[in-house]
């Protein structure tokens, strides 16, 4: 083949691959082709929401109607991890949304929505105001404890949890406190307390029990007690199944543990039908990579993840920073991109997983200095976490 021919062929190739993959519109072949699934007319949640929506439409300035609708929407949004419902709730609160000094319930709901979209500082402003106004607002205090912990301020979170002791059932108050103190160098004690309160509580599967069991498994994992972590996660998963819910947080934490324990097949089995949850899709792809077989599924899942990150970028959103950093480091193997994302993430979120990805990305891109803020954070908080210690040790 002559040089000219080669060049022409290459130019054609470059041109061909330059056309972006956009969705091409089409006319479906069959009338009864199902294009989308939505809640049916018999879905109880959807029906309740529709009734509240009708009431709100009739009197859009009615605070009680707006709050009732927003709460119902958030409940569905939470159960399905669907941001649209958070948007519906925000719309219902429209008349009060822009007010600094909004009614108490609106402050708490607005904070809930802000934290969902990772606007933690905005959530803090609302919660501080709500608690100043009413220090015994349980919801506000519990949400603030969570937000503070996500921001890496376990001590302040613990103070909020302590305040809850007289107001909520022991299981909730102690889990809240144990969650914070386990990040401050008191993991063993936190675990003992959790064990005690779980024993004392009714054995029924409840949200609170699920939370406590998840935390217990996480603490065991951080302390390096692999067998305890294994049984702990199994117990939490059983509770989740009994509740007939999908808890993406628990599933992601368990999947990370199972992959490190070289059990990718278990992760694949449980997550293969959860591809609509970004977090879990990432874990599924990681498990497929760890297992090292079936490249077609892995590359399909990788493409799905890429497309979702790209869609979020187009919107100008930054809710996926941690997951995107994990994707870049573990799957795409672009250490420098992973580090950049992990550093951005660290500015917003400071949980053990955020620390871990930043340490590992710094190591892989040979930028020891980039890990400094995390190393300092580990020293300052006294957090006990085997994975973090190993990752930090590898940097020296």
């Amino acid at each position, binding site marked *: 083949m002559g040089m000219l021919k080669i060049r022409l062929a290459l130019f054609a190739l470059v041109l061909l691959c330059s056309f972006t993959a956009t969705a091409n519109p089409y006319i*479906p072949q069959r009338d009864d082709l199902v294009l989308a699934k939505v809640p049916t007319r018999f879905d109880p949640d959807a029906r309740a929401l529709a009734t509240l929506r009708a009431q709100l439409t009739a009197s859009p300035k009615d605070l009680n109607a707006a709050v009732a609708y927003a709460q119902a929407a958030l409940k569905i949004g939470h159960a399905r991890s669907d941001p649209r419902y958070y948007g519906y709730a925000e719309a219902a609160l429209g008349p009060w949304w822009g007010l600094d000094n909004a009614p108490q319930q609106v402050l708490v709901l607005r904070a809930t929505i802000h934290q969902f979209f990772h606007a933690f500082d905005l959530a803090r402003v609302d919660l501080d105001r709500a608690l100043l106004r009413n220090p015994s607002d349980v919801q506000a205090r519990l949400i603030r404890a969570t937000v503070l912990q996500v921001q890496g301020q376990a001590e302040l979170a613990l103070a909020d949890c302590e305040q809850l002791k007289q107001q909520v059932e022991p299981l909730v108050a102690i889990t809240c406190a144990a969650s914070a103190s386990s990040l401050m160098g008191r993991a063993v004690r936190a675990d003992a307390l959790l064990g005690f309160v779980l024993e004392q509580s009714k054995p029924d599967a409840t949200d609170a029990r699920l939370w406590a069991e998840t935390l217990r498994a996480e603490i065991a994992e951080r302390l390096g007690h692999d067998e305890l972590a294994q049984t702990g996660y199994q117990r939490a998963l059983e509770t989740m199944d009994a509740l007939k819910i999908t808890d993406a947080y628990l599933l992601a934490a368990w999947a990370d543990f199972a992959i490190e324990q070289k059990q990718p097949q278990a992760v694949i089995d449980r997550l293969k039908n959860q591809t609509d949850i970004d977090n879990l899709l990432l874990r599924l792809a990681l498990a497929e990579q760890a297992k090292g077989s079936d490249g077609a599924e892995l590359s399909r899942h990788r493409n799905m993840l890429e497309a979702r990150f790209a869609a979020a970028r187009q919107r100008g959103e930054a809710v996926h920073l941690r997951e995107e950093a994990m994707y870049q480091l573990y799957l795409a193997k672009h250490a420098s991109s992973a580090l950049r994302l992990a550093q951005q993430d660290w500015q917003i979120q400071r949980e053990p997983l955020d620390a871990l990805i930043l340490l590992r990305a710094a190591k892989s891109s040979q930028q020891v200095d980039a890990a400094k803020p995390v190393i300092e954070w580990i020293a300052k908080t006294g957090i006990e976490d085997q994975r973090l210690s190993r990752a930090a040790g590898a940097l020296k």
Partner: protein
Amino acid sequence: MKRWLLLFVLLLSTTAHAHKPSDSYLKLHVVDQQISGEWDIALRDLEYAIGIDTNGDGNITWSEVREHRDAIAAFAMHGLKIEGEGECSLQLSDLQIADHTDGAYAALMLAGRCANSPKEITIDYKLLFDIDPTHRGLLNLDFGGVQTVVFSPDRKQIKFHLGGSGALATFLQYLQEGLWHVWTGWDHMLFLGGLMLPAVLRRTRKGWVPVHSLKVAVWDTFRIVTAFTIAHACTLSLAAMGVISLPSRLVETLVAATVIFAGLNNLIPMSQRGLWVLAFFFGLIHGTAIAGALLELGLPTDQRVLALLAFNIGVEGAQLALVCLVVPITYAFRYSTFYRRAVIIPGSVVISVIGMIWLIQRAFEIHLISFGS
């Protein structure tokens, strides 16, 4: 106390969104008085806004979508106004379906007309904002140049000028990135340097012999450099589009190997004829390696072709500038033994050694020197 609210917050806070938030994709093309376009709106959003699941069975079928054609058109058109020195009309010309990452969308084919050929248009977008303030309208507007913007409740009205600086700005930005990539990319420089050092000489059985004319020297180098750029452009484009993806450690290691080869080839002849073929194959490897950097920069989705073209023109331009600078100088010294002994040989040794260090560093992930890697 509402327990559900109490607890879901706790378990939720760090969970990323399961579903994509609500977006619509609006593509508009305005030429003179004519407007054409496509607007993709999620069927889920239409269901929540106007109710298109007629029988309430939870399945939205194609016939249900078609049945609601007028309602969909009315709802959508209420959310979009275009003004171009006077009102512009906009109608639904056809209704189809488009599949996006998160499911099926109604694809509204739009056609419209402005009273005059506007130099400036204003677009008002308020679709869904009243029921979901987290909704975003992602606009891709071709109005004498492609521009992309995002409509949000805080930014519902945007004015556009004919021609837009979009395309030109993109081109210049990526052209500069391309130039910069060569000037600051040690991988790239060393590899090309290795190939260019002996360009003014020909290797014969009796050893190095100077070439007869500057034209030959420049032409030889030009071929090498251009073959490299074309190959480079090809794999770079494929990688940037996500068609191919190789682990960066492997690619970086291969790049280091090409640098070693470029240096060694001047010391121990391995390939003399058709160096451009070699440059081509090595260009394929280098292209994959820098795709990561380019992706990090973020390719504009609507102007990928333009951006990639500009980047590659930048790369080629920088290389040719280097050729024009280096080759005449080395040409002047082509008869000097000093050039051969004190430049080509030590230069090639240095290149090979650096390549070797890189190779070890990258293949085994150990840190030896922090020079350009």
